[in-house]
């Protein structure tokens, strides 16, 4: 980028909203993904849609890459400026514009922190369900762009199930609106869904219309411990077969159990092969009934220990083990990869077994926890990225792990997205025809390939 480009950017957003010092640039060279850092040439933070549009026009005319960024918490190198250029920081667009109670929708800017939206609507008895582990820090824009999910994904789905409309700025600076407040809307291609999960490669999201849902009146949490992995798998299937969709249905494998126990001393038996944490929510009467049925399913499938939380304090205690999973693993070694491979839910035990034998064969530490109910697993690899020999083994293990997921009929990502991190396996999952179609869409909407180039669909 040249000096006059920087000056032009300063003209658009004001001097103080363009960062160019080496220190500031260094601070925007990474996100939460290990091993992909690269410095941008400038960090630009617009105040509104018009400024965003002007920035994109400038970038497009001058072929300057643009990497849109929310809070930078993604796990796929999504906002790493791998080719330099502009990091477009959206955090100043942080207003909740409207909470429309008659239509149960909210309209918000992309820089709003997801938890802040939930705080705002909690008093109205509403929730916006997508709740990634980072709800307290991630932006609405970042979660929509990543199609983020979370713990209650099984019952409530991921971001795309709640996005009704968007205002976006296209690569050339044009401003476009998709969808709206209509609950039913089948007019034309579903551009809203296309942009949701586009990971900053097709547009910059500047306004978001979300669906809101009534907050569940009651919740009930249960935990079961299994010495036999297959029994845990069967219990999951039995719960679903009993037509119960819990809000949360989480699993931890033996490696995770041992690590959690060592770190948090929550009382898990070290020889357990799986722990399931289940939470049902909704109408209090239904919740009671469903909880009973879940307990039956757990017992019928030979759970070695089951517990149901009687009150909030007990619920907290049951959750403690699940909450400790990532911190406990992350503390083992300096580098932490939280992967996101997903398999059909009846294949969860097969996948867990595959991961654990891959870990053993390659001599790397992998603990797997995740959303058993929807098959979304988070094999978490801990290592030290500064050790080249170890990293060779780690990359090989990752490779085998993703291949295993794909072979089981799974997908590379259930919620974290592709970015650069999972790009190497995209062709293997989708095949050449699909990849070509995706690349055509990218080329059509961003002919100069300035938006997050090289990510998600690769080089075009």
């Amino acid at each position, binding site marked *: 980028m040249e000096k006059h480009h920087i000056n032009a950017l300063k003209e658009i957003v004001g001097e103080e909203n363009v*960062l160019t*010092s*080496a*220190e*500031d640039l*260094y*601070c*925007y*060279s*990474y*996100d*939460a993904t*290990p091993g992909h850092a690269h410095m941008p040439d400038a960090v630009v933070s617009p105040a509104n849609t018009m400024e965003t549009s002007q920035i994109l026009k400038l970038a497009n005319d001058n072929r300057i890459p643009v990497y849109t960024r929310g*809070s*930078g*918490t993604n796990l796929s190198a999504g906002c790493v400026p791998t080719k330099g250029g502009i990091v477009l920081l959206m*955090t*100043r667009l942080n207003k909740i514009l409207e909470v429309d109670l008659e239509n149960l929708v909210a309209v918000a800017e992309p820089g709003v922190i997801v*938890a802040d939206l939930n705080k705002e609507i909690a008093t109205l008895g509403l929730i916006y369900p997508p709740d990634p582990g*980072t709800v*307290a*820090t*991630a932006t609405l824009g970042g979660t929509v762009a990543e199609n983020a999910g979370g713990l209650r994904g099984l019952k409530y789905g991921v971001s795309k199930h709640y996005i009704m409309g968007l205002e976006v700025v296209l690569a050339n600076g044009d401003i476009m609106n998709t969808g709206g407040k209509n609950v039913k809307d089948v007019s034309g291609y579903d551009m809203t869904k296309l942009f949701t999960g586009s990971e900053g490669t097709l547009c910059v999201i500047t306004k978001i219309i979300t669906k809101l849902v009534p907050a569940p009146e009651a919740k009930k949490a249960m935990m079961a411990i299994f010495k036999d992995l297959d029994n845990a798998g069967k219990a999951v299937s039995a719960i679903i077969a009993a037509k119960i969709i819990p809000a949360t249905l989480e699993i931890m494998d033996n490696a995770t159990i041992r690590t959690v126990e060592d770190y948090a001393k929550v009382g898990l038996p070290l020889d357990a092969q799986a722990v399931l944490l289940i939470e049902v929510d909704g109408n209090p009467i239904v919740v009671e009934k469903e909880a009973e049925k879940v307990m039956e399913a757990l017992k019928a499938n030979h759970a070695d220990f089951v517990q149901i939380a009687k009150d909030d304090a007990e619920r907290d205690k049951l959750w403690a083990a699940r909450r400790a999973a*990532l*911190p406990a693993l*992350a*503390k083992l070694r*300096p*580098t*932490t990869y939280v992967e996101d491979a997903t398999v059909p839910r009846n294949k969860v035990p097969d996948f867990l077994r595959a991961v654990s034998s891959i870990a053993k064969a390659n001599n790397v530490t992998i603990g797997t926890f995740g959303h058993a109910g929807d098959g979304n697993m988070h094999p978490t690899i801990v290592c*030290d*990225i*500064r050790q080249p020999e170890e990293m060779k083994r780690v990359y090989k293990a990752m490779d085998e792990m993703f291949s295993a997921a794909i072979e089981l009929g799974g997908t590379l990502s259930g919620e974290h997205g592709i970015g650069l991190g999972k790009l190497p396996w995209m062709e293997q999952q989708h095949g050449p025809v699909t990849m070509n179609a995706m690349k055509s869409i990218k080329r059509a909407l961003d002919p100069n390939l300035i938006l997050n180039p090289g990510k998600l669909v690769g080089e075009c």
Partner: protein
Amino acid sequence: MTDKITAKDINEQDKTLLADLQDALANCMKCGNCMEVCPVYKEVGKEAAVARGKLSLMEGVLKGAIPLSAAFDTAMSKCVSCKACTAKCPCGVPADELILRGRQAAVKARGLHPIKKKVFALLKSRQLFDFSLRMAGIFGPLNFKKLPGKMASLARFPMPGMDYKRVTAPFASTPLRNQYPEVIKVDKPKMRVGFFTGCTINYMYTDVGQSVLNVLKENDIEVTMPSLQHCCGTPVYMSGDVDSAKILAKHNIEVFDEYNFDYIVSACGSCTEAFRIEFPHLFHDEPRMKEMTERLAKKTYEISEFLIDVVKIDKSKLGPVNTTVTLHDPCHMARGIKVTKQPREVLKSIPGLKFVEMKQPDRCCGSGGSFSLGNYELSRKINDKKIADIASTNADLVATSCGTCRMHLMDGLHQNKLDKNALHVIQLLDQSYKAGHKK
């Protein structure tokens, strides 16, 4: 002053200063969880302001990717050391401490912020320090304009490092330790404690010191205020001047060890933390000092903690204090020494006192020790949020357990035109004992 100092240059002076940090820094997984809680990031909104960014900058310097520049110093100085990031971090990265190490590196490379340099030069000589703060007290009426009613005054002449508008406590005309004999005897003493007054209480908030002495006397405890004690060194340490901090720490340790007290008390979270955590840390590789420090650390208590956990005060002697109070938890109480229950128990035992909890009572007030000297505007913005939380409780006054917080809260209440007082928890307890005598 040059911008071209690199990690290599510092490492030539001190081979281990930044280099041994590498492992600790590598443990940060860049998850960004610290963004939720960092009060500085909330105001500044830039990555360089949050722990994740600051740790990355240190990594960058170590890798040689960026120079140890003035901008690096500025980034490191933008931290109130509130420990919120450390408490939140899923990876157990002690970010606040690492940031202090980053400051040390910067200090090594090019010296302190000029204002702080003046203040700290003063701190190092106990006599000079005492002399100038006492002079400030004697000439206080000249230096400060008294505000009606409150324990606050406005700096009339620019003080080094003080913002013109800023409200501070006046320096006491007679420091606390000069108002009393060194040993304050009681009939039939239950125990002998040493009172580490800390500078704020000795030179400014003598009213807090008096309350501490009264309350201990009420409980038949003999108190000694060793005359040779000096500032704990926390502000100096926080700014990255470790060598000076060690001089101060060693002095205090040797002074207090001489007396062989049953307990050491202080009325400030940071002072307690200094004795309990920082001093042992500073001398971990000097066996004689280490042993002495650990001995003292074990018997050091913050005053509310001491009264509730050790003394187990007789609550029947307390009289009514009819007021509504909310409590601010100083960072170094809440996350440093993890004392939050006891001050609440003290307040709740006072008859007539209505206690109301504010939103996030443990969120930093923005003072951050000497942080506010160099970053007054920023510290005000952080403080304004605190003041708004206090205001929304409708309490008559806010209690806290740290002089620096009290001063900053006082300033904030004044700047926000709120007619409320800020007091130390122990002052309310003192009032309650007094009311008890009138019963």
